[in-house]
């Protein structure tokens, strides 16, 4: 299971967000370049449609593959009160012939995208990962070098934290309290709920970027 929220930020404020996250998280940022291939199963594979995502981390010298299955989100009155989305998620590292294997099983390529950005991983009540990335699409199949952003002026911010059925409330609380720190720059919400941009973003970004007029020692 995981708790997840998403938000958007204008590309011009991404640097300010990075500074803020650096200050909040206390860890170094990690670059991100992930080729995400989304596969859907063919008609002969079962009753329900299922989709599987293969993530290839292109930032390392040796590309590493991960398979991820995202399940349904928690529903009900309790879920509506939580400000994060809690959903089942299974993830595993796989070898590089995973794509072949899934094709052999009968999965078909549904869509693919390329995420380029950075991420921060830290522990603050829960193991939280913040990812800021621009989402790029490929006009030609698998042409990752020729990817263009889906929305050039806006980048996607995702905050996720793994959880289990026992502790998801604490994890959700940790994630939502962390998100409050980001309030001057962006609003985060459950995936699928749109938020718009924050009006104070420009002022907050300006103050984060300024050096305050002091000289360095």
């Amino acid at each position, binding site marked *: 299971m995981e708790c997840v929220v998403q938000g958007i930020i204008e590309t011009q404020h991404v640097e300010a967000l990075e500074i803020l996250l650096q200050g909040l998280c206390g860890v170094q940022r990690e670059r991100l370049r992930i080729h995400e291939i989304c596969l859907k199963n063919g008609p*002969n594979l079962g009753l329900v*449609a299922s989709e599987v995502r293969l993530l290839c981390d292109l930032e390392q010298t040796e590309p590493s593959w991960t398979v991820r299955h995202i399940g349904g989100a928690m529903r009900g009155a309790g879920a509506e009160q939580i400000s994060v989305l809690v959903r089942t998620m299974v993830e595993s590292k796989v070898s590089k012939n995973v794509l072949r294997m899934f094709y052999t099983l009968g999965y078909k*390529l549904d869509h693919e995208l390329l995420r380029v950005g950075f991420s921060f991983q830290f522990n603050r009540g829960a193991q939280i990962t913040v990812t800021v990335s621009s989402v790029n699409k490929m006009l030609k*199949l698998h042409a990752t070098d020729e990817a263009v952003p*889906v*929305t050039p002026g806006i980048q996607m911010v995702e905050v996720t934290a793994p959880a289990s059925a026992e502790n998801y409330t604490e994890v959700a609380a940790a994630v939502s309290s962390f998100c409050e720190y980001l309030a001057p720059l962006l609003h985060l919400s459950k995936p699928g709920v749109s938020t718009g941009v924050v009006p104070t973003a420009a002022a907050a970004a300006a103050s984060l970027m300024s050096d305050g007029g002091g000289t360095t020692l």
Partner: protein
Amino acid sequence: MEGELVQQQQERLNQAVQQQLNLEQVKMRAISLFKAISRILEDFDAYARTNTTPKWQDILGQYSMVNLELFNIVDDIKKVSKPFLVYPKNVNADNATILPVMLSTKLLPEMETEDTSKRDQLLQGMQNLPIATQIDKLKARLDMIAGACEGAEKVLADTRKAYCFGTRQGPAIAPALDKGQAAKIQEQENLLRAAVNVGEGLRIPGDQRHITASLPMHLADVFTVNEGAQSFPEGSSNNAYMKNTPLSSNSMGGQNSLLQTSGSQLLGRSAASPNVATSATFDNTAASPIPYANSPRSSTNMMNTPSPQQQTSQQQQQQPTVQQQQRQKMMQLPQQQQQLLAQQQQFRQSAMQGLGQLHGQHQMQFSQQIGHQQFQGRQLTSGHVQHGIGQSQLNQGNQMTRISQFSGAANNALFSAAQTTPNTQMIPNISAGISSQSLLPRMQFGLSGNNPQRNHASQMLNDQMFSMGGGNPGGMMSIQQQQQQQQSSQGAFGGMASNAQNLQSGMMTLQNTQQNHPNFSQQRQQNQQ
């Protein structure tokens, strides 16, 4: 006298010092401080007694008052404390030991070591320089620190203003983005969220899913030359799945794409050759020596085989070629497998895709929709209409024929063609001429050879199930199966090069379950040619 002596004995403070001290003021301050502190203590007593929670703002305010007053007093006294020194008057057993310590100006040992270490740290590297330079350097450092502090305070003040932390009022009206900008951003946001979560806007249409020559490194060894991109055609995200019977045997091996295209074999294709005829005529592709699928001689009810012209032109294109090969392979499967494969085809609700029009020839299929739906005059987007002609036999019963759409002129032509078709004849080809267009779409209805059921155009155009003759005692192929076939045929044709032709018609025909019928064999023969 005594009074004067007493007065003189009373020491008088120096007038100047007295003025400096300003005793009255200090007394006032001390008194007010005392009062403030006692007030706070009383408040706390009250809180404790009534068990109410204190309001922190008030208490903080009071504390700040006390703090201020204390500060002022200390400030005042410090100014004038120099001329005074402490003279312990009352030495007794209690304070005898502690007095020397309190009076001494020498630091305690720990404090002394701390002091020296800090001093060393500060003067590191400057010990050897003359005192004056040391002083200068220290001064410079102090200035820099002061500058940094000022900058920090400025930033804090600015931020405080921006968020109105200092004031007790609410935030000022946030600068509103103008509506147009906000709308644009909203639109972009929806695009982005849809792309990330669902994959909207990222799907490459089937015809563009060739593997480019240069695969990125991490995918280089994944694909072999033959496999190609195995993909869903567009709009597959809402597929409904049916219960599938597993293939008993699969001669296709690992070629999954064939499974998807298998249905196309069962459905066949209609091949229309371009015809300049303006009126609806039944134009047999007489040039083709292949017996028609729906000729009286043949027992199949599949579509006509494509004319040789069509076939060759198809071969010229890569993807259709591949698919044709696949189809031919499929035809070699036993009928049963075909059946099973047909049953396993997906049911899809997506809009029909444009079939490639190969040098002016059309392939039309009738695609089906879910359920028992009536005919609707729904318009398909231009240029992307795929028509599939399913098996030609029409069923009776509770399944509806669905005509998804006809364009205006085509409608008329088609209807007229339908009307004029005699019901008892076998109609090898019904071509509807669209006079407004140079290329004429054609619809072919496969008709069974020996069944009284006719794939009559007019019948198909009705939105009610027309009863067929009794020659079809077998059950009817389920909608789903048929739909599957339709869907799969769509998949097969999805790879065809799309054409700008504005074909807009589609029909859903329901087929009966006479798939064991030699229809298939016929079809196979035809397709192998």
